[in-house]
């Protein structure tokens, strides 16, 4: 639109001999960078969604997000040295052996070698904590261990230390298929997670399923919409220029559809995380993945 106005101004200037006045390029940039751009784009998508045929919520064979990524991102993830997420894994490895809290115990004091003791963890989590009956993910499990066994303060969600430890622990399960089992204890949480997945919300009135099932593989601006699996998290996102948790990514989607973002570690995000893990059954753990 602005281009048309500029061209018209250009013609006008030639015809009248008056100096040209262009729309400030900065203003245009500001629009491109502003949340209003996403608002417009996702708004358009919202109109197209009801027209699409309903598909099954869980595709027969789930496809990892990396299969939707470009060649450069794939190469970055495949090369363990070029993958910047490995810096957090390296940091986590150091932290694993550092004593914390009043107990003066490190993770290694009890769990010894993470490469054997932490193997399969990322494939099995989130799960139900037997003591409290609540859903726990790797982050809350680490913090629980800190409080109970190390007598240390819990780490803040998205703090460098917690991200490094989570990435290091989850990395030990790399290549193993996600295998969260549905049973009597986690069924109510799975059901609630599924409910959230199908619930339209926010100003865009979009549910997770509208993009990540009904429009998976299609374009949203320069992005290809993935099936939205969490098997690569904590993952390094180029947008963040850092590693981030799955909950940070989920909150970004809440923001994208202009919904109220649940707090880190809230029941809503944990239930959703559990449902996503169940949905990603069979996909290999990629931690630390690389995403745009």
């Amino acid at each position, binding site marked *: 639109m602005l281009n048309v106005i500029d061209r018209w101004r250009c013609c006008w200037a030639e015809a009248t001999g008056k100096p040209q006045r262009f729309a400030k390029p900065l203003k245009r940039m500001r629009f491109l960078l502003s949340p209003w751009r996403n608002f417009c784009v996702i708004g358009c998508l919202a109109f197209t969604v009801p027209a699409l045929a309903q598909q099954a919520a869980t595709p027969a064979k789930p496809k990892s997000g990396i299969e939707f990524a470009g060649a450069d991102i794939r190469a970055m993830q495949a090369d363990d*040295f070029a993958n*910047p997420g490995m*810096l957090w894994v390296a*940091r986590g490895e*150091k932290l694993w052996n550092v004593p914390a809290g009043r107990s003066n115990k490190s993770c290694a004091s009890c769990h010894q070698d993470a490469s054997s003791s932490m193997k399969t963890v990322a494939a099995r989590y989130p799960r139900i904590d037997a003591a409290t009956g609540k859903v726990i993910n790797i982050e809350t499990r680490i913090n629980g261990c800190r409080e109970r066994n190390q007598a240390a303060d819990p780490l803040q969600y998205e703090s460098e230390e917690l991200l490094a430890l989570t990435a290091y622990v989850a990395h030990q399960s790399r290549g193993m298929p996600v295998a969260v089992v549905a049973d009597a204890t986690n069924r109510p949480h799975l059901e609630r997670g599924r409910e959230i997945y199908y619930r339209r919300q926010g100003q865009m009135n979009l549910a997770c399923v509208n993009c990540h099932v009904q429009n998976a593989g299609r374009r949203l601006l320069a992005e290809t919409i993935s099936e939205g699996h969490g098997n690569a998290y904590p993952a390094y996102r180029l947008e963040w*220029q*850092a590693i981030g948790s799955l909950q940070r990514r989920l909150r970004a989607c809440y923001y994208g559809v202009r919904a109220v973002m649940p707090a880190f570690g809230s029941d809503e995000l944990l239930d959703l995380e559990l449902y996503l893990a169940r949905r990603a059954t069979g996909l290999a753990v990629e931690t630390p993945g690389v995403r745009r």
Partner: protein
Amino acid sequence: MVARIQLPKTAARGEVISVRIAIQHPMETGFRFDVNGRAVPKNVINTLTVRYNNAEVFRAEMGSGIAANPLLQFYTVAGASGEFVFEWIDDAGQRGTERAMLEVQPG
């Protein structure tokens, strides 16, 4: 500051080897503003030097255009067995050092 170094453990004399270093660093450009509207001061790794047996073999001077967590790669010729010393400093004055050994076999 975490850094990772990649170079072969052993090399033949005269062989061209690839050396890579990745450093965890935010590489703050100085062009961003925080939530209160205040400019975030520029903080990038401005200089990185690599010495091989005390001779400088690589130097990089970086600015705002380099992404966070930079990965640098260069090639050098394996001369004698010895130590690679990586040193860098950022705008906040924080220094980092890493070392790696290379064993050179007479070829």
